[in-house]
């Protein structure tokens, strides 16, 4: 199982992959009752993680400012692009 990584540290893609695995396992219906409850809880956590990542859909556009040598010095908010 890939449960070594805590759900709150997973990227969207990792959480997504495992959620699919969990759902498929549960739908096969051959897991023991205890295991199916554990899987359901895990699935609910993974779904919440995916939702969080999907909610973090904020646009933030910035332009890098450069010094004379072409080295980055910071960022400045980009205008209305």
């Amino acid at each position, binding site marked *: 199982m890939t449960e070594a990584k805590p759900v709150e540290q997973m990227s969207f*893609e990792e959480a997504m992959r495992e959620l699919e695995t969990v759902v498929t396992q*549960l739908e096969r219906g051959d897991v023991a009752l205890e295991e199916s409850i554990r899987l359901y809880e895990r699935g609910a956590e993974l779904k919440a993680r*995916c939702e969080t990542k999907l909610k973090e859909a904020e646009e933030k*556009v910035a332009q890098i400012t450069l010094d004379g040598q072409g080295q980055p010095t*910071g960022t400045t908010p980009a205008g209305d692009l």
Partner: protein
Amino acid sequence: MADLIEDSGAAGGNAPEYTVSEISGAVKRVVEGEFPHVRVRGELGRVSRPRSGHVYLDLKDERAVLSGVIWKGTAARLQTQPEEGLEVVATGRLTTFPGQSRYQLIIEDLRPAGQGALMALLEQRKKALAAEGLFDAARKRPLPYLPEVIGVVTSPSGAVIRDILHRLRDRFPRRVLIWPVAVQGERCAPEVANAIRGFNALPRGGAIPRPDLLIVARGGGSIEDLWGFNEEIVARAAAESAIPLVSAVGHETDTTLIDFVADRRAPTPTAAAELAVPVRLDLLSWLDGQGGRLTHAVSAAMARRGERLRDLARGLPRPETLVEWPRQRLDSLADRLPAALRAGVQARRVALSEAGGSLRPGLLARALAGERRRLETCGPRLAPALSRRVEAGREALARRADRLTLRPIESEIARGRQRLAEQGGRLDTAFARQVEAQRRRLESADRLRETLGYTATLKRGYAVVRGDGVVVTRKAEAAQARALEIEFADGRLAVGGRPRKPGDGAPPPEQGTLF
């Protein structure tokens, strides 16, 4: 005519005489006046760029070579940088260089001679980089599924960045960092390469967030406009990028060198945005679907289990039916128990009476009387038997005692005494021999001592000198001694020390020379 020729031949001495500088100046004026603006087509030969910043090159075709120079200021403005082997059209003016008797073209503009020339150069670079393995499919990395930060290398103004941001907004708004670069002209290639390296150099968790994905983008244009993206430094920077990189340069039909080394190539900037992020709404509906499937799967499994439980419960017999048969068996056994007990006791009683019948005191008394008779016959024979045995032992002892005498012991003592005497004699002889041998060794050692000792040497004419009682072997030691003494084989002679009267028998003192 004939006269004229003859005249000029004869009047050779009257032709005007130039100095070298004058004739050089005259040639310069003619050349510069005749060719103030020319376009020359040819292949670039050797190109050299000394530290001064000026560029010196050769233009050549099959038969001739023309030297050219591009001054520093002009070189910086050129769109196409001169490169050996490139077919070009150079625009400029001819001049001479009197110092070396040379003429050259001062180049003011340099353009590739048609697209064919540039394409040929591009093919050459592609082959070189492909040979290095920079285009290998194994080098391509997958793009992150949902990057948090996207770095875009492009012009901050113009349609390209707007297209990208617009499509990102539609699909999945993200954090975007724009690294502004010139997307054409001679500053393009170094700035793009610097931007790719710069994004890669950003530390994780630094003030400027490090992107998870890079997009290098530019709108469509002529091959000359896009040329910066064909430069080797750009291709190498893209190949070295640790951050996955999408190239989106020009239109679908334009292929630049960076497209071959990028991890993915997008036909347009908009398409790059589509490669970069998934559609958020699709993911939300997918997630809803997963949630539904999750709940349904669990509740269906529960329902299935409930049903199965009910089915099993129906098949379970009533508890009463389970105990009826054992109870019946118990009842029947309980009925049979008293009768069985009685019968058992009866059977044992019969067996006891049968065994008791054969047990009578008469039998025992007969056996006892038999044993007593045996005891009575044996008892009287006991005492005579014992005295017979004692008598026999006593006789045997008497016979043995007769044979016991002192003679063997005495002869043993005599033999021992004789052996002692023999051994004593041998001990004395051996001891005397040992002493003699030791004495001879001592004598020979003493003779050796005398030979080796200095006294023997004295007999051969040598002498020992002592200063203040200590043997001296050096002149310096002798010089410091208060008194000297010389030992000869037959005695010692004092020298110096206390003053002696002359004629004392001592040799003349040598202190005069010593001190």
